[in-house]
C-alpha cells in the first residue's frame, strides 16, 4: 500500500493527519484518554508518512513543489521539498515517531490535572509547523509557519501552567524567539530590497546583485535570528529554562529537532543562496561553534536538574554542528568545494545524530521524572534496579552523546574532527589557528561531555536511592520503553552503518547548487569510512564486532579459569560506620572539581550561612547551609543592561504620551507636514 503513494502525496497525507490530530484533540478536550490516543496516533501516522516521503526523495526521488497563490499578494503558499528539506523532514519524522509512541504512555500522568486535548492540539500543530518550516519556499509563508511553530512550542512550554517557573520560562522564550524573528524579518526585507522578491528561487538567482555590505548585514541578521532559535551562546538563555518546562516528549522534539530548524536556515541562506561568501563568515561561525560547544558542556556540568543538563548539552551539540558548518563555509569561500562538502556532511550527520540521542536522553529523563516526580538529580540514585530498561537505554544515549565508539555520536564527531583537521594546512596562519582552536575545543568538549554523563548516569541510576520516591520507583509504561528502545537501537545502527549514512548525506549535499560536480570527500570501502584525501579511515562495525567478541571471550575464559570460586554478596566497605546514601557522591560534588578548574569562565560562588545556638559563644551551630551558585554572566553583563536601556528609553518616550488630545493632533499635523516635505523633495 505504501509503495503506491508518491513522495508528494505522503507529504500531504502527513500534513493532513497532523491537521486532523490537531483539530480532533481540540474537539475531544473533555475526554482525556480519547484525546491522548487521537492526538498521538495521528502524530504517529503523520510521522510514518513523513518518513516515507522523505526517504523517497532522499533515495533518488525528484524534488517536488507546490505553489498556490493567495489573495494576500506577496504571500503565497509555496513549498518545495528538495533533498535538503527531505533530510530535515526525515529527522523530524524519525524523532516524532518514537516521541509520539512515548507520549501515549507519558501523557497519562496528566489525566485530570491538565488537558491532553490541549496538548494534542498544540503538539500536532507544532509538528505541522516544523514540517512546513523546512519546506517553505517563500519568505512570507516561511515567516508564517515559523511563527506557528514558535507559538505552538510556546504554548507547549507553558502547558503545565500551574507551575510559576514554567510561565516565566515561557515568557523568556517568547521574548527571545520574537527578538530572533525580528532579525529574520529584517534579513528577508533586506533581501527583498535588493532582489525584489520573497520567493526563495528568485532570491537565489538574484543574490549576486546584492551589494557586499548588504550581504554582510543579511549574514549578521541570519546569525542572530536563527542563532537564537538554534541556541548559540550568548543567545541561548531561553533554552535551558524553556526546554525543561515542556512535557518530556515535547522537550525531546524541541531539543532534538526544533533548534535544528535554525541550522537548516543557516544552510539555506549561507550556502544555498550565497555562493562565494566572504571568508570571515565561516570564521565567525567556527568561533561561535567553538564557544557554544565548550561553554555549553561547562554549563551542563554545573547543573543538577537533569533536563536542564540535557538542554545545555543541546547548546554544546549545536556548537559541534556549527563547527562542521563553519569549516564548510571557510572551505566554500576558499574554493575548496570537496572539503566544504566534508564539513557539510559532518554538520548534517551530527544534526541527525544529536536528534536521535538527545531525544533518547530526554525520554529517559522523562521516565525517571514521571516516577520520582522531581528533576533534581540529587534525589535519584539506584534506579538501575527499579528501572532496568530505562537505565540501559539511558546508558546507550549517554555513550552516544559522549562520542564513544561504536555509537553514532562518534561517527559524526570523527567527521567534524577530520573537517577541522583539513583546515590546518590549507590557509594562512591565522585561519589555521582558528581551525586548531576549534579542534581543540572539540577535543575538550568530548572529554567534558563524557565526564558530565558519567555524573548524570551515575548519580541517577547507580549506587543507592537517595530519596523515598527513588526507592519506590517502578519501570515506566511499555509504550515509553518502546519509544526509547527504537531510538537506542537507532544510535547503534546509525553508528555501525555510518558509512552508508554519510554516502546518503553526500548525495544531499551534492544536490545543492555548486556542489553537483564536486568529488565526494568520503568513501566507504569494506564497511569502513575513509576520507578521500587518504588522511584517515575508521570502521565502526569492526570496532563493534571486535569489542563484543573480545569481551565475550574474556568473560568466557575468566569463567573457565575460575569455575570453582565462590562469589559472596557482601556489604559495601563502610570504614566501620553505617554507610548511608548521604555518603555517596552527589551530582554537585562530582563536577565540583571541574567547576573549580574552569572558575574563570563559570564564576562559581559559595555562600555559607551558619546560625549559632548562642550568638555569644560561637561554638555550637544550630543550622548550617551552603549555597553554591554559578553566576549568570549573560544576564548580568548583556541582558540586564539591554533591559535597563530599553526601560530608560521607554520612560523617555512615555513623555510624549501625555493624554492630551490637542497634543496628539499636533503630532498628527507635524507628521503630515514632514511626510509632505519628504514627498516633495
Amino acid at each position, binding site marked *: 500500500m505504501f509503495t503506491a503513494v508518491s513522495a508528494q502525496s505522503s507529504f500531504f497525507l502527513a500534513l493532513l493527519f497532523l491537521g486532523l490530530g490537531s483539530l480532533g484533540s481540540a474537539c475531544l478536550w473533555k475526554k482525556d484518554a480519547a484525546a491522548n490516543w487521537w492526538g498521538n496516533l495521528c502524530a504517529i501516522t503523520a510521522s510514518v508518512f513523513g518518513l516515507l516521503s522523505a526517504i523517497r526523495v532522499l533515495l533518488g526521488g525528484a524534488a517536488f513543489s507546490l505553489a498556490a497563490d493567495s489573495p494576500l499578494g506577496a504571500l503565497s503558499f509555496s513549498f518545495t521539498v528538495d533533498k535538503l528539506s527531505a533530510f530535515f523532514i526525515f529527522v523530524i519524522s524519525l524523532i516524532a515517531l518514537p516521541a509520539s509512541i512515548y507520549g501515549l504512555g507519558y501523557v497519562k500522568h496528566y489525566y485530570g490535572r491538565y488537558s491532553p486535548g490541549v496538548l494534542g492540539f498544540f503538539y500536532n500543530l507544532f509538528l505541522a509547523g516544523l514540517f512546513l518550516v523546512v519546506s517553505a519556499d517563500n519568505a512570507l509563508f516561511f515567516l508564517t509557519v515559523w511563527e506557528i511553530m514558535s507559538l505552538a512550542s510556546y504554548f507547549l512550554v507553558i502547558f503545565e501552567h500551574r507551575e510559576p517557573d514554567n510561565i516565566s520560562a515561557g515568557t523568556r522564550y517568547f521574548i527571545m524567539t520574537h527578538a530572533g524573528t525580528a532579525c529574520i524579518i529584517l534579513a528577508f526585507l533586506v533581501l527583498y530590497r535588493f532582489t525584489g522578491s520573497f520567493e526563495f528561487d528568485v532570491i537565489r538567482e538574484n543574490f549576486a546583485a546584492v551589494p557586499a555590505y548588504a550581504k554582510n548585514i543579511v549574514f549578521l541578521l541570519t546569525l542572530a535570528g536563527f542563532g537564537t532559535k538554534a541556541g548559540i551562546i550568548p543567545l541561548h538563555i531561553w533554552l535551558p529554562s524553556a526546554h525543561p518546562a515542556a512535557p518530556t516528549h515535547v522537550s525531546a522534539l524541541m531539543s532534538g529537532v526544533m533548534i535544528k530548524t535554525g541550522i537548516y536556515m543557516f544552510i539555506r541562506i549561507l550556502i544555498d543562496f550565497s555562493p562565494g561568501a566572504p571568508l570571515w563568515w565561516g570564521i565567525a561561525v567556527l568561533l561561535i561553534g567553538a564557544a557554544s560547544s565548550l561553554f555549553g558542556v561547562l554549563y551542563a556540568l554545573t547543573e543538577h536538574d537533569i533536563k536542564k543538563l540535557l538542554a545545555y548539552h543541546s547548546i554544546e551539540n549545536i556548537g559541534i554542528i556549527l563547527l562542521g558548518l563553519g569549516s564548510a563555509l571557510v572551505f566554500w569561500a576558499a574554493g575548496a568545494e570537496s572539503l566544504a562538502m566534508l564539513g557539510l556532511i559532518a554538520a548534517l550527520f551530527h544534526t541527525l545524530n544529536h536528534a536521535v540521542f538527545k531525544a533518547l536522553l530526554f525520554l529517559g529523563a522523562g521516565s525517571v521524572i514521571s516516577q520520582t516526580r522531581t528533576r533534581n538529580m540529587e534525589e535519584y*540514585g539506584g534506579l538501575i534496579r527499579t528501572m532496568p530498561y530505562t*537505565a540501559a537505554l539511558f546508558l546507550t544515549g549517554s555513550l552516544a552523546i*559522549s*562520542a*564513544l*565508539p561504536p555509537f553514532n555520536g562518534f561517527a559524526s564527531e*570523527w567527521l567534524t574532527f577530520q573537517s577541522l*583537521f583539513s583546515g*590546518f594546512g590549507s590557509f594562512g596562519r591565522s585561519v*589555521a589557528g582558528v581551525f*586548531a582552536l576549534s579542534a*581543540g575545543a572539540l*577535543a*575538550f568538549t*568530548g*572529554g567534558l561531555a*563524557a*565526564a558530565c554523563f*558519567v555524573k548524570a548516569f*551515575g*548519580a541517577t*541510576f*547507580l*549506587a*543507592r536511592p537517595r530519596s523515598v520516591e527513588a526507592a519506590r520507583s517502578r519501570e515506566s509504561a511499555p509504550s515509553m520503553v518502546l519509544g526509547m528502545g527504537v531510538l537506542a537501537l537507532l544510535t547503534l545502527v546509525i553508528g555501525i552503518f555510518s558509512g552508508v549514512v554519510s554516502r546518503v548525506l553526500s548525495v544531499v549535499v551534492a544536490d545543492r547548487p555548486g556542489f553537483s560536480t564536486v568529488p565526494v570527500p568520503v568513501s566507504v570501502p569494506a564497511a*569502513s569510512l*575513509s576520507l578521500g584525501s*587518504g*588522511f*584517515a*579511515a*575508521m*570502521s565502526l562495525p*569492526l570496532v563493534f564486532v*571486535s*569489542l563484543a567478541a*573480545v*569481551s565475550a571471550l*574474556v568473560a568466557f575464559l*575468566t569463567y573457565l*579459569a*575460575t569455575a570453582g*570460586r*565462590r*562469589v*559472596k*554478596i*557482601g556489604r*559495601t*566497605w*563502610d570504614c566501620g560506620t553505617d554507610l548511608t546514601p548521604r*555518603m*555517596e*557522591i552527589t551530582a554537585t*560534588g*562530582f*563536577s565540583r*572539581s*571541574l567547576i573549580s*578548574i574552569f572558575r574563570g569562565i563559570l564564576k562559581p560562588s559559595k555562600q555559607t550561612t551558619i546560625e549559632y545556638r548562642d550568638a555569644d559563644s560561637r561554638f555550637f551551630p544550630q543550622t548550617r547551609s551552603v549555597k553554591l551558585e554559578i553566576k549568570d554572566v549573560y544576564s548580568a553583563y548583556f541582558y540586564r543592561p539591554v533591559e535597563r536601556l530599553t526601560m530608560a528609553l521607554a520612560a523617555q518616550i512615555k513623555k510624549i504620551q501625555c493624554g492630551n488630545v490637542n497634543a496628539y493632533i499636533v503630532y498628527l499635523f507635524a507628521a503630515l507636514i514632514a511626510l509632505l516635505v519628504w514627498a516633495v523633495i
Partner: protein
Amino acid sequence: MQLLLVPALSPLFIGIVRRVKARLQNRVGARVTQPYRDILKLFRKDEVVSADASWIFSSAPYLIFAVSILLGASIPLLSAHLTATVLGDLLTVVYVIALSTFFLALAGMDTGNAFGGFGSSREMTVAALTEGGLIFSLLALAFTAHSSNLFVIAGAISSLSLLAFTPIILAFVAFVIALLAETGRFPFDNPATHLELTMIHEAMILEYSGKKLALMEWAAANKFMLFLALGANLFFPWGLAASASPPALILALGALVFKLLVFCVLVALLESSLAKFRFFRLPDLLFMSFILSLIALSLIV
C-alpha cells in the same frame, strides 16, 4: 598475535618500574615477576560483591580488559607494515580508551562507596583535560605522516631526517604528560597508595576483589604498556620489523622490550624525583601538554 603479546608482557613492566623505584628508595623490592603472581593469586581467590552493585559493576572489568588487549592489536608493536588495520585510527584509539575510562568511572560509582565516587570524579576530571593533549600530540605526528593511522605514522616517522624531528620532541613531551595522566602515575596519581585524599585509580577499583580485581589490575598494566609502546614506536620508531619473517619479528620484539625498559626506568626515575601534585595544579600541566602539542603542530603544518 599482538592480542596476546600485551597481556603477556605488561605485568613485567609494572614489576620493573616497582623494582627500580624500590632500588631508588634503598629497598630491595619485590621480584619483577611479582605482578604475575599477584594476578594469579587474585584469580584463585573467592570474590565479594557488594549488594548494591549492578550489572555495570560486574560487566565493566570484562569490557575494560577487552579494550586494553584490543588496543594492543590496534597499535604498531613490532612492525609498521604488516598488521596495519583500520582500528589503528588515531581518534578511534583515543575514544576507545575513553570508552573504557567511562565504564571504569561508572563502576567506581556503582557500589555507593564514598571513595569510589570521588575516584570517578577525579578520574573523569583528569581524563577530560588529558584528551586535548593526547589527541593533539599524536596529531602532530599524523600531520608529519599525512595519515592518522598509527601504523602509517610509525612507518613515516622512522624515515624522517633528524632536522624534521625537532618539533616531534615537543609533541613527545606533551605525550609524556598525557601518558602519566592516563596511566595514573606521578604527579597525577600515586599507583601505590590507598590514601583517600589522593587516590584516583585505586579508589575506583576499591570494591573489586578476586577475579574481577585481577582483570582490573591486569587491564591497568596493559594500558601502561600500551602507552609506553605508543611513545616508543610512534616517536622513536626504530627497530620495527620490515618483514613478517620470524627472525625479523624476534629482533623487533627485542628492540621493543629494550625501548620499553628504557621508558620504564625513566618513569621510575620521574616518579622517584617528583612529588605528587596538588589536584588543582594538575590542569596547568595538562593545558601545558595541549599547548606544547599546538606549538609542535604549528611547526609541522
